[in-house]
């Protein structure tokens, strides 16, 4: 779609004042860019023949639907924020996609990272995954590039079938480029166990967020969104700029809003996060996807062993690592499993670090330093 003339920020301020300031205006990392540069970051192609008027009319009904889908009725809390779950922050740092329509890679990787941490109860687990591999390898293979953007569905298919390596094996830089990932990537990997389409199902969205930590969602971006500086966003003024993908990290039924992590750096929004009212910009109605778990295959950072466990079932020994939580020891044979247990027990007794190689929830190798 053609790039709109840049929004007059004085007009935006005036419009916000007229509408009792539902959210705060700010000069952000995005307002400093040209309109052409801004729309490059909207990497989800809008549906053909999109009727903007119809979208606007549907917002009210969508908001009512999302409000009616009370989280409590889905067995979820009234409000949830992954940045503060009983005082614990499970989110990974806000990133900046730069001048590339790679928001789908960031929106989906955010989900994988958050689900990995939250489902394991490990808020400090280092899990910085490679948006570069997701976009420049798996996306490119599907025909995506910085100019075309992509969609969350095929990205999550790749996360299930291939997995995504860690950022140190292919760090992200903005701009179309070759897939130059470290050849060892299959041994340094996170995979999604599956993914589920939650589009137009706000009750399931809330249930998924509160149970697994995050979901991804796409929505229509209007020009005023670039100058968002806090509060609950609603479209006030400005034309439709494009489609965008983000990571939803929470919701609040009392305030009627979703909480999201964007990929425009910490200089936009509230440290990179924003709140958007239920029903706005088709946030519940476009490529909403949830991931109910991940598996890792990687050397974990050195950590302490805090607990050990076994029972009457053979070869069923588990160790609790300070960073990772519970992991089963995979000794292949009973004597090897016993050797692993002996080594970890000694490390635990001594209070020294161990290195664990995790493969799909089990320890395949270990060092006791």
């Amino acid at each position, binding site marked *: 779609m053609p790039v709109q003339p840049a929004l007059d920020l004085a007009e935006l301020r005036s419009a916000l004042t007229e509408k009792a300031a539902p959210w705060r205006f700010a000069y952000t990392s995005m307002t400093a860019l040209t309109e052409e540069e801004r729309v490059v970051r909207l990497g989800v192609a809008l549906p053909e023949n999109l009727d903007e008027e119809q979208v606007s009319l549907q917002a009210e009904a969508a908001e009512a639907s999302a409000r009616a889908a009370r989280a409590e009725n889905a067995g979820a809390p009234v409000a949830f924020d992954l940045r503060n779950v009983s005082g614990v922050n499970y989110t990974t740092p806000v990133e900046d996609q730069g001048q590339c329509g790679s928001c789908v890679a960031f929106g989906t990787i955010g989900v994988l990272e958050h689900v990995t941490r939250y*489902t*394991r*109860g490990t808020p400090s687990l280092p899990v910085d995954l490679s948006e570069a591999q997701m976009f420049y390898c798996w996306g490119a293979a599907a025909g995506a590039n910085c100019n075309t953007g992509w969609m969350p569905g095929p990205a999550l298919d790749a996360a299930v079938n291939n997995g995504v390596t860690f950022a140190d094996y292919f760090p992200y830089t903005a701009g179309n480029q070759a897939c130059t990932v470290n050849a060892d990537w299959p041994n340094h990997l996170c995979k999604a*166990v599956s993914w589920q389409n939650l589009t137009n199902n706000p009750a399931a969205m809330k249930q998924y967020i509160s149970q697994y930590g995050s979901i991804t969602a796409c929505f229509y971006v209007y020009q005023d969104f670039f100058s968002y500086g806090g509060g609950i966003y609603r479209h006030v003024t400005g034309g439709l700029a494009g489609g965008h993908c983000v990571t939803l990290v929470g919701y609040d039924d009392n305030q009627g809003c979703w909480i999201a992590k964007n990929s425009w750096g910490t200089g936009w929004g509230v440290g990179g996060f924003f709140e958007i009212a239920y029903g706005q910009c088709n946030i519940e109605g476009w490529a909403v996807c949830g991931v*109910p*778990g*991940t*598996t890792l295959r990687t050397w974990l950072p050195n950590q302490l062993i*805090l*607990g*050990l*466990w*076994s*029972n*009457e*079932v*053979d*070869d*069923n*020994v*588990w160790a*609790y690592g300070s960073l990772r*939580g*519970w992991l*089963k020891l995979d000794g292949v044979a*009973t004597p090897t*499993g*016993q050797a692993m*247990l*002996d080594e970890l*027990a000694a490390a*635990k*007794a001594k209070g020294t670090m161990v290195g664990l190689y995790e493969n*799909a*929830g*089990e320890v395949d190798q270990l060092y006791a330093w």
Partner: protein
Amino acid sequence: MVQKASTPRMKPPSVAQEASLAGTSAPSIPDAASAGATAAAQAAPTAQPPGATTTTVTDGDGAAAQRVGGPPVARAAGVTPATGSATGTWQSGVTVDALWSINQIRNAWMHVVNIGWVKIFNGSDGAFTALNTLASQARQTGRPVTYRQESDGMVHEIYLW
């Protein structure tokens, strides 16, 4: 408190004990004369290691609290723990202060402060060895354990913290 010096000793094998060595379920009997005098005063095994499990402290709630996040309720996707039976009695946050074993197949016991001697599950080599390692580490480090004792009198599950 059980001291190292109170380690039970075997008396010369009787016919019954020889039968035990041949595979019957009869437990071995530490030497009551040589070890029992000391052991009795210190709650060490006298007739046999399990003799002093009369002070049972049930703390099911405490055990459940310890289990949160542990293998039986692991939240991460992927591996599902094999939980076996879970109908026994839990003891939570207790201390192992002595161990006992004998030259019989899978016959080892741990002594728990304020509880007494309890036998380690003997159903298979793998489970027996792993549980005995946990008990040994608990005894060596003085760290608390939470364990499950089944109606067969044996310890079937141990958390070592």
